């Protein structure tokens, strides 16, 4: 049921989310509310369409002469790759389904509920948006093992990493550092205030190549999100 009080509280965030100006936590807060509020969802859609139209004001400029042929070459080159990824996604999902069946135990027939099937279909559609193969998430813990945030990862085209910290860490800028076998790379900054922070970016590496994601504070203090090994389906 729609909570009108919450609608009023979050009304100011609609324009910020529509234009992309909202912080990660604010955006997450509004998106949670939209799950139960058709009215706010419709308002956000309208504001987002309006914000997208603002992009039209950029002046048109003719690109260099060989632009069209360069684009077509890339489109042709990308076609088989995209096909390969789609084929790959299906076995990966079948493996996941098989794992669920195994967990249910021998002799027990797993019957997916309508909700489960809708969830699975929604997951597939979401992954297909950017040729994705999987989403992953891992808790960020402090040196006592307490959870102070989360890292979300998407393996697709492009792949991305997004880190969210709660209000627990000391205020300041925290670098989001991605560690792979090739070394460490700072991809974003997450500015902790009283309400925590969020920050991330697309990355060139496959998610399966990431060993851990660290949030390094201004004084060198760092927190780690340890990623489960063997996530790669390759």
């Amino acid at each position, binding site marked *: 049921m729609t909570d009108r009080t919450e609608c009023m509280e979050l009304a100011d965030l609609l324009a910020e989310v529509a234009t992309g100006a909202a912080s990660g936590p604010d955006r997450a807060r509004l998106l949670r509310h939209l799950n139960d509020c058709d009215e706010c969802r419709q308002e956000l859609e309208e504001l987002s369409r309006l914000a997208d139209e*603002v992009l039209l004001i950029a002046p048109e400029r003719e690109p260099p002469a060989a632009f069209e042929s360069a684009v077509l070459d890339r489109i042709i080159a990308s076609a088989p790759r995209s096909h390969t990824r789609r084929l790959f996604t299906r076995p990966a999902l079948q493996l996941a389904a098989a794992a669920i069946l195994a967990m249910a135990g021998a002799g027990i027939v797993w019957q997916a509920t309508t909700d489960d099937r809708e969830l699975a279909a929604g997951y597939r559609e979401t992954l297909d948006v950017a040729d994705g193969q999987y989403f992953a998430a891992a808790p960020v813990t402090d040196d006592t093992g307490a959870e102070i945030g989360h890292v979300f990862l998407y393996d697709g085209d492009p792949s991305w990493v997004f880190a969210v910290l709660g209000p627990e860490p000391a205020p300041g800028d925290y670098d989001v550092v991605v560690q792979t076998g090739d070394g460490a790379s700072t991809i974003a900054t997450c500015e902790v205030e009283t309400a925590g922070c969020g920050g991330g970016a697309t990355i060139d590496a496959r998610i399966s190549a990431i060993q851990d994601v660290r949030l390094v504070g201004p004084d060198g203090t760092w927190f780690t999100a340890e990623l489960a090994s063997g996530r790669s389906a390759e």
Partner: protein
Amino acid sequence: MAAGDIDAAATFVRRFQARVYGLALAVVGAAPDAEEVAQEAFVRAWRHAGNFDPRRGRVSTWLLTITRNVAIDMLRVRRDLPVEPAAVAEMLVGSVDDIDRQAESDHIAAALRSIPKDQAVAVVLAVHFGLTAREISERQEIPLGTAKTRIRTGLARLRSKLEVSRDRSD
């Protein structure tokens, strides 16, 4: 890839390349980088054409949102790019007659010019450059609350202006 698909892709690129490249150039500033952004935007658009929903807007705005996203990705990685978002935003919302825009964007440009400039600039900084309200407040040296108000009020006024202009044209 079938020959018909290639022809369709060529027509698509030809139709929108000036618009896509223009936006890429406005955001990343340098011609070689803008070309890379524009190429990538077309590749992504073509690959995900099935996701385009005409009920949610025009193909041109859908393509431009992809372009903007690619450009912002580049800005985040390439911090060496000579980009001055505030200056570009002021140019985009300014009353410049020599800017080459298509008719379909005239109404939005006119509406942006009719609202207070600081609000229009705040909206453009968020929409074109992906700046958060906090980043806008830091760059413009204004309180965070002021940046948020400019974005919120600017978008609301923009909406009102466009509704009025649509009512008049009906």
